[in-house]
């Protein structure tokens, strides 16, 4: 489902954390593109910089060096508000810990990103939320609260929330990390289906079973890209 058009472009990106005495190079010389409709995985051991990279991709953090472009536009000069708006419209997040807000119902959790856009009527928001919930098979639980859902269900709702703005890029940070294998597989299956429907996905995982399901796997080690491979897709191999 990929095209040749890169929507994400990282050029020599580095991230340095400084404290009084120590300078830590969390990322250095990261350079890759993500094309529209692509499903890539970022893999590597704990502490290799996966989450930092995802934060930069998600505009939650800024690189210390290098350039990061989304749809060809540089992100370096964006202020906090512009970054928030771009995040709201172009990027969806799925977290390991689901991160649903306990005080809000399923519907309200999914609706939340839309409320930050100020460009949709209540009716339009409702339609989009219902569509997103239907995509993840959670439309029937929209009045429920976090505490009434299983882990797998919570993650489905989190995916719906990430999708509701129809983002250019869906970022998933260890989406199966808090799930048992059955629910983990279901979530990966859901991400695959979304990718097949055209959603660009970037997933951080340390589970090679799931990493290898992507179109491309970027291996990180000590903050550097050490490998980039196109896995032998099991389904493709079978075909």
């Amino acid at each position: 489902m990929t095209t040749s058009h890169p929507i994400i472009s990282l050029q020599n990106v580095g991230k340095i954390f400084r404290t009084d005495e120590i300078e830590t190079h969390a990322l250095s010389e990261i350079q890759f593109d993500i094309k529209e409709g692509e499903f890539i995985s970022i893999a590597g051991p704990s502490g290799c910089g996966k989450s930092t990279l995802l934060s930069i991709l998600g505009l939650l953090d800024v690189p210390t060096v290098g350039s990061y472009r989304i749809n060809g536009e540089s992100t370096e000069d964006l202020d906090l508000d512009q970054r928030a708006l771009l995040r709201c419209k172009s990027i969806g997040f799925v977290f390991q810990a689901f991160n649903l807000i306990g005080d809000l119902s399923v519907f309200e959790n999914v609706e939340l990103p839309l409320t930050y856009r100020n460009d949709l009527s209540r009716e339009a928001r409702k339609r989009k939320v219902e569509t997103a919930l239907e995509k993840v098979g959670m439309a029937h639980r929209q009045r429920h609260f976090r505490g009434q859902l299983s882990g797998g269900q919570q993650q489905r709702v989190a995916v719906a929330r990430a999708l509701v703005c129809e983002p250019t890029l869906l970022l998933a940070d260890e989406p199966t990390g808090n799930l048992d294998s059955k629910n983990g597989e279901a979530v990966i299956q859901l991400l695959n289906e979304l990718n097949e429907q055209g959603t660009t996905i970037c997933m951080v995982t340390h589970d090679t079973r799931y990493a290898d399901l992507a179109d491309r796997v970027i291996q990180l080690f000590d903050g550097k890209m050490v490998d980039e491979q196109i896995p032998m897709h099991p389904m493709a191999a079978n075909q």
Partner: protein
Amino acid sequence: MERLFEDIRFGFRSLRANPTFSFIAILTLAMGIGVTTAMFTLVNSVLLKPLPFVDAHELVYVTLENKKTGELSGRTDISFVERIEKLDSPLQELAYYAYNQVTLGKGDIQTPYTVLITSQNFLSMHGVKPIIGRWYEAKDLNTQSVVISYNMWQKEFAGDPNILSRVIKLDNRDYNVLGVMPLNYSSTGFTSIEVWKPINKLDRPVQIVGRLKTGLSTEQAKQQSMAIERIVDEILGEKDSVWEIKYTTVLESIVGNSKQSLYLLLAAVLAVFLIAVLNVANLTFAQYTNRVQEFAVRVSVGASRGRLLRQLITESALFCLIGGLAGLLLAAWSLEWIRELMGSRLPRLHEISLDQTAVLAALALISISALTTALIPAYSLVNPNKLTDAIKQAGQKMTGDKNSQKVRRFMVSSEVGIAVVLLVCAGLLIRSYINLADQDTGFNTQNIVTGHVWLPDNFKPQPNRHSYWLDLVETIKNQPEVIAVAASSTMPMGMTGIDYPVNYSYQGAPVVPRGEEPTASVRSITADYFSLLEVPILAGREFDYRDTANGPKVVVINDYLAKTIWPNEVAIGKTLTLPKWMGGDHRIVGVVGNVKHRGLRAVPLPEFFLPVTQHNYPGMSLLVKTNSNANVATIKSMMLKTSIEKQATAPMILLETMQDLTEGSIVGERLILIVLSVFAGVALLLASIGVYGISDNMVSQRTSEIGIRMAIGARPALIRRWIVWNASKPVIIGAVVGVLMAFIFGQFLASVLYGVKIFDPITFAAVPLVLVFVGIIATWLPARRATRIHPQQALHYE
């Protein structure tokens, strides 16, 4: 006991581990407990504690009250007392007293002191024995004997143990000292009395004090007095039943005027205490929320809920105790401050001390604080279901359930509501005070220095008394920087002098029953009195050289009296008939504007003025108009020196500027305003801390939620608005409820307000707006902090 020590040890460790919380909680409680203890001590010492006399509850003031008008009679002289004490009455004993002034002579120096001239049984009836010597008795009546105060003994005689064998000079006469009263002894509620002297003759009214028969209340005494009331009318020569006897306990009489103000301030300070406790409970809530995981672990290893509660109460008791002890120090300091602030304006001030009752009150406040600050949050958080959840979510931060949030928001709303009530009350008092200060006195108060002179009983000026006053006026007038001088029997804006109502009549006056005659206040004045004060002369003239002692009797009346008697006629030339002892018929020669004689709050009353040449008193107030650049201290010194030169035993006292006197007439209102404003300020500060606490805690509790919101596109401004709005909601609710409460509680202020409606729209609109504004500022800092949280950090926050 061992477990208790363990809890205390752990409590200290918790306090050390959370220094910010500990500091704020202890400071807040110190303020709350301190001011409450101080105000309770004040109320207890002034209003509740029995007076330091033997069987003080039996001591009553006996007054004659006009049945129709409620006015008190000024005809209670010594002969009256002597006659009624022979009657069968509900009193065991009767005594009387009057105020006077003496000068104590030491070499060339004469120092004025206030003396209480009393019946020979006055001191023995009160039952407080001198620390040296004895009370005076009947046998001392015609001897030159006095009892002196502890203060005079120390100050003037350096505590001489042989004082009883010394002869002291009072008004230039030799006196024996019979005894020295104990430190701070006061028979009138104030400690300004330094000398007690027995008398059995006095040509002016006296105050009557009696001891009720054992077991009788004032009401029962009143019922038993009907028979003697008839005889009272006979004694006073009344044909009709005009007077009734009124018994007022000495305590009520001394402190009655202060009661409303003190209870008002006590209510205000209890409100401050409530805010302080709610505030600390709120802070403790935040602390406990952060410790739910710890509580869960304790329960999981076998701690019962009761055991956990005991530990939390012990921890709370620790910081409440530290706060309470600091509060006691603050209370001691506050009482000193109140003593200085009130001066002699509050009775029994010398009796105020941090006594056993005050310490017990502080301990009670500490206990209430400890239980409240521990149990409110513990009730909400320390329950088995919640702790089980905490165990399940081990490793994750508890976000605080909705009920806990509701309780905390309710507490903040309550704090804000109470603060609104206090601020509205303070606001109303400020507006009232401004109105009072803006009142037109009816005369010019600028560049006038005043003083008062009492002529001693044994001084008979020659050729007569009015010549003495005129001579004193003339001498001062000739001094440098002096523009004009006048004298009056009563000082405008002051409480000094002779001021009493006098019956009057006039041609064509309607016939009224005895006791319902119209009255007006009398002032004896010198010429130039009105021009010096710039009181407008509306018709006729003021007194001058024509108004001699033997000339036609003349009177000047004020506009109020003129309009009361002759609303549509010219008063000049008409006759005002005064009692015979005051000279009978007087021709009205002038009508002058009304003045607020008894202070800025006073309303104009009917008044008439007599020339000092035709009617005067042994005490007169001097008014000295000076150049605008004259040095007030120099003028005061000159006035004192001149008076002493004229008569050494009649030094001028109470030297003050008219401006100070005028401002002093509303000093009571100002003091209440200051104290209540301090309380309202503390309430505002505490409520702000409470609002800050809840918004700060909201940010801490919702750090990960803030991260999620930011991750899915919330802009920083939106996050700030969200935090501010959520934290401001309880403020707005509290402000609205507070305004409603202020409508109810404002009624209690009605009698102390001047020119302000209880429902003053400006105050009622401004106060909640200010509080909401302060509330928003208090939420702003945590809200700003929230937007500075790094989303990545927030998302991994545990």
